[in-house]
């Protein structure tokens, strides 16, 4: 290997060379560093960086890896926590993914991450490698991945480019996730022109582990070996780094490096099994996945989190493309790779596992007793740094932010104020037409066309998945112990009020989890925003983080990890602030989960609406259908959300309800439709009591998006108990009607009747119509 490499004609920039040639011009600007950042690197090192060091610092100090614009704000997630919230938290923010105790020796880890811009450039591979990356984060905690989810945001449904993006992203998520044997248990699909040039592809993975299998990314134990295994390293994802091609910085030889990464799901599947076997036999001390910033990230994080340092020989990396230079190897984002630390005694056993799974590996170096990360190339030192300065001491900025000048005008522009009341539906026929229009609209229509392309069965532990409120997976087959997860965000709400919008995202995902019957326990978030260098956007971001962290504290659910994705904009136009919040809930036994609709055998059960309905149409799906966006989002009331959650969980525990669906986008109209279509069983409801109690009309009752509400189906035998429970807690409740298995229709008494066939045709026809 080394002989072959030695023939390469790189101008190897060693540490000695760097010290001796302080005035060499370095392409730090091309690599994305700012002048002050470059000067900081020189100060840290006491000399100019070598080409390889420059490569490492530039990727590790990028916004993506260093969180330099958000670090000062993200701290709130760690500060606004009570002892109670920390109780079950085994690993918090900062590691690859947070870990929460589930009881009985089980733990769960989950995380959500973005792969937005790669998915716009090459939708299939971008989305596929998004799934691949987040799954490796989960493996690196010592867990077996057990499910994935995919919150998505696309441009306008009828924009020509949406064909390319939607087809590519959906088949990419399916193509990768399905091949890994991970059920897809939910997600989101939103269409809005604001995402046209910048779709959002977020991916979530969840894994389970026994407490004793927990692994962290650190390199400890002097003399322990460092190994890189999985796929070979190619030039993937370093298109922008081509300035390093010759490492002599004369850009006369532009190298041809693929800017997109191509995923190999089979390699990842094998990597999962192989890692689980390593964990089971306790063969690794520390482990780290390779994602953004590749080997730069893995070596510097392992070394800085451990006790000692690390020494690595870079020519020992197995390459797919032998022309790669040291800097490029350090920056490469080739997929399906892992790095681990192994004791010398375990080397042979480690190699046996690799042989069994036919996985390639190479020993790169070992843990040392000083605090340096030293990387050599054929024995010559090309990197000699304090790994903490690479991994943790990146620049931190207090970016200026201010409430945008236009925010007041936006909030003053209410829906009621802007539309002529005469055009609002009021007769039964008009209301029916509006309901059919709503449930067929791009955002509210059935997502079956997408979710039918995802395997939801594999593993045999999926207890709920799309279209239910939360995905539910069983963790322990014996006890039924399990988890529920839901992801939510409403970019329009957050645009209208960044603070409240982020809280509403949490409120909805919390509510979804509770609706399924699980006890909300932890949060992961993916903050998708525009450029932090724009003070308007920075304000949205600051408000979003403040809002979310305050709300987590109030609901008692800690943020265990997440991801920030910035610069989501087309030209100067930022996307709506989109803080996607994933809430994870615990189940003592998933057998008692509550589905989001009633079955035929629920005939005659009573249908109740929990919560109060106000005139809240600003930012709603109905307003969106009329092309309006302004005013204030629905009011946040976290105390009520908590109470509603308790009611839904208790009702599930005590067998008081057979179905439950929370109200969110599209309000009561959407919820009733979805509950009827869930198992194709009709209902008769009346809105009169509700309208009278809350002082609203039928239109508002159907389309308002007031929070902290849910519809439930209660068996006749449980009605007294149910009402007692709700009454005792003083929660607003009204009986809407009954499940009617005979009628084959949704009847809103005195207003309209829509047959199940009509509803289904409207709800399920939209995506196939656009996407085939």
């Amino acid at each position, binding site marked *: 290997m080394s002989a072959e490499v030695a023939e390469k004609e790189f101008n190897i920039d060693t540490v000695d060379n760097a010290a001796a040639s302080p005035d060499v011009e370095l392409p730090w600007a091309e690599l994305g560093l700012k002048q002050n950042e470059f000067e900081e690197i020189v100060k840290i090192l006491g000399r100019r960086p070598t080409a390889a060091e420059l490569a490492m610092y530039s990727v590790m100090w990028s916004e993506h890896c260093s969180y330099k614009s958000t670090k000062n704000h993200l701290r709130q997630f760690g500060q606004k926590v009570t002892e109670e919230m920390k109780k079950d938290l085994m690993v918090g923010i900062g590691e690859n993914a947070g870990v929460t105790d589930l009881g009985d020796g089980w733990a769960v880890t989950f995380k959500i991450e973005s792969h937005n811009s790669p998915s716009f450039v090459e939708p299939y591979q971008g989305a596929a490698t998004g799934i691949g990356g987040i799954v490796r984060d989960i493996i690196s905690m010592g867990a077996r991945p057990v499910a994935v989810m995919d919150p998505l945001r696309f441009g306008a449904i009828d924009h020509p480019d949406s064909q390319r993006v939607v087809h590519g992203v959906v088949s990419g998520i399916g193509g990768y996730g399905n091949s890994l044997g991970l059920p897809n248990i939910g997600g989101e699909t939103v269409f809005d022109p604001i995402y046209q040039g910048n779709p959002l592809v977020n991916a979530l993975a969840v894994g389970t582990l026994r407490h004793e299998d927990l692994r962290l990314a650190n390199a400890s134990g002097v003399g322990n070996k460092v190994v890189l295994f999985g796929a070979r390293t190619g030039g993937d994802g370093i298109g922008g780094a081509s300035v390093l091609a010759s490492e002599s910085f004369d850009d006369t030889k532009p190298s041809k490096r693929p800017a997109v990464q191509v995923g190999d799901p089979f390699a990842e599947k094998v990597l999962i099994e192989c890692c689980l076997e390593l964990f089971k036999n306790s063969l690794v001390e520390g482990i780290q996945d390779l994602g953004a910033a590749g080997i730069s990230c893995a070596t510097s994080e392992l070394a800085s989190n451990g006790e000692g340092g690390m020494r690595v020989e870079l020519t020992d990396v197995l390459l797919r493309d032998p022309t790669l230079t040291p800097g490029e190897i350090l920056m490469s984002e080739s997929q399906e790779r892992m790095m681990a630390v192994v004791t010398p005694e375990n080397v042979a056993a480690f190699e046996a596992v690799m042989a069994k799974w036919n996985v390639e590996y190479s020993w790169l170096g070992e843990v040392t007793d000083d605090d340096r990360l030293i990387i050599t190339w054929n024995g010559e030192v090309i990197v000699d740094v304090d790994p903490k300065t690479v991994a943790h001491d990146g620049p931190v900025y207090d970016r200026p932010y201010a409430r945008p000048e236009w925010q007041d005008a936006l909030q003053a522009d209410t829906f009621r104020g802007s539309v002529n009341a005469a055009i609002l539906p009021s007769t039964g026929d008009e209301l029916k037409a509006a309901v059919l229009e709503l449930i067929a609209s791009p955002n509210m229509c059935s997502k079956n066309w997408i979710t*039918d392309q*995802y395997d939801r069965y594999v593993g045999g532990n999926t207890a709920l998945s799309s279209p239910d409120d939360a995905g539910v997976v069983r963790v322990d087959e014996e006890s039924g112990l399990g988890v529920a997860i839901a992801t939510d965000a409403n970019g329009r709400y957050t645009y209208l009020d960044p603070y409240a919008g982020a809280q509403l995202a949490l409120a909805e995902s919390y509510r979804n989890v509770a609706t399924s019957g699980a006890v909300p326990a932890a949060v992961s978030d993916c903050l998708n925003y525009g450029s932090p260098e724009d003070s308007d956007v920075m304000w949205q971001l600051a408000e979003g983080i403040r809002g979310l962290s305050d709300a987590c504290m109030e609901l008692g659910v800690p943020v265990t990890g997440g991801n920030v994705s910035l610069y989501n904009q087309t030209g100067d136009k930022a996307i709506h602030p989109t803080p996607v919040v994933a809430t994870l809930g615990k189940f003592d036994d998933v057998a008692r989960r509550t589905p989001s609709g009633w079955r035929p055998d629920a005939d005659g059960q009573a249908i109740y609406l929990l919560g109060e309905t106000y005139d809240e149409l600003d930012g709603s799906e109905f307003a969106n259908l009329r092309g309006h966006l302004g005013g204030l989002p629905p009011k946040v009331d976290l105390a009520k959300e908590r109470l509603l959650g308790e009611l839904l969980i208790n009702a599930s525990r005590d067998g008081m309800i057979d179905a439950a669906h929370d109200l969110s986008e599209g309000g009561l109209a959407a919820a009733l439709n979805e509950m009827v279509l869930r*198992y194709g069983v009709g209902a008769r409801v009346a809105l009169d009591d509700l309208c009278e109690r809350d002082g609203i009309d039928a239109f508002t009752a159907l389309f308002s998006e007031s929070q902290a509400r849910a519809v439930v189906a209660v068996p006749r035998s449980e009605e007294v108990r149910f009402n007692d429970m709700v009454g005792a807690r003083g929660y607003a409740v009204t009986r809407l009607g009954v499940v009617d298995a005979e009628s084959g229709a949704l009847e809103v008494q005195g207003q309209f009747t829509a047959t199940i066939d009509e509803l289904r045709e409207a709800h399920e026809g939209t995506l196939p119509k656009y996407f085939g």
Partner: protein
Amino acid sequence: MTDLPLIGDYSTPTTELSGARIGVVTFPGTLDDRDAARGVRMAGGEAVALWHADEDLQGVDAVVIPGGFSYGDYLRAGAIARFAPMMDRIIDAANSDAKLPVLGICNGFQILTEAHLLPGSMVKNDHLKFICRDQILRVENNTTAWTNQFAAGQEISIPLKNQDGQYVADEKVLDELEAEGRVVFRYVGWNPNGSRRDIAGISNAAGNVVGLMPHPEHAVEAGYGPDHTGTDGLGFFTSVLTQLVGGTK
């Protein structure tokens, strides 16, 4: 397979069917091996893990080749897997006088056609998309090793999930399959992938080798099958156990 951390482990229920040992083959890209093993156990049998690279059938009484993407299946589904050492053993045993019962599910079915244990082949779904849904099948032949616990003509609901599920064969082969009663399952209500003559599953002439695209192993436990209630897939596993116990093997 079973030597890996299963999500929970539970012991084999003791019924009169226990004792029969059903092998479940794992290739590196196999996905549904745990589910297939669960199906075997829930039916009362003992699931035995068979590794693709091994040559020892470990004396199993029947074999399930579960779904997944054997070796990635980038070339053709099942194309590379068919050459695995374990497959050589299985092919021999299936063709031997003992007529080892073999069930190929989805990718397993594709492997069986590549191995020429079953005729025809699978190409991409006519709509070109991966599809996952609950599917109704009609049991056209209830005399095979894997279907004897169903009634003739019985309609069952089990999940379907695949990308390359369109069954193709030339007309002569199709006519032969029909004439010999070797069309074991047909899609009902909707042909989800364009398969010739709505064929969802077939058998070899002796009836010991059966392949189908839909997934019985995902419909063995109430709460986790079609519509969260269905357990129609269990019949596949009780069928083979019944045949083995009945001594007809």
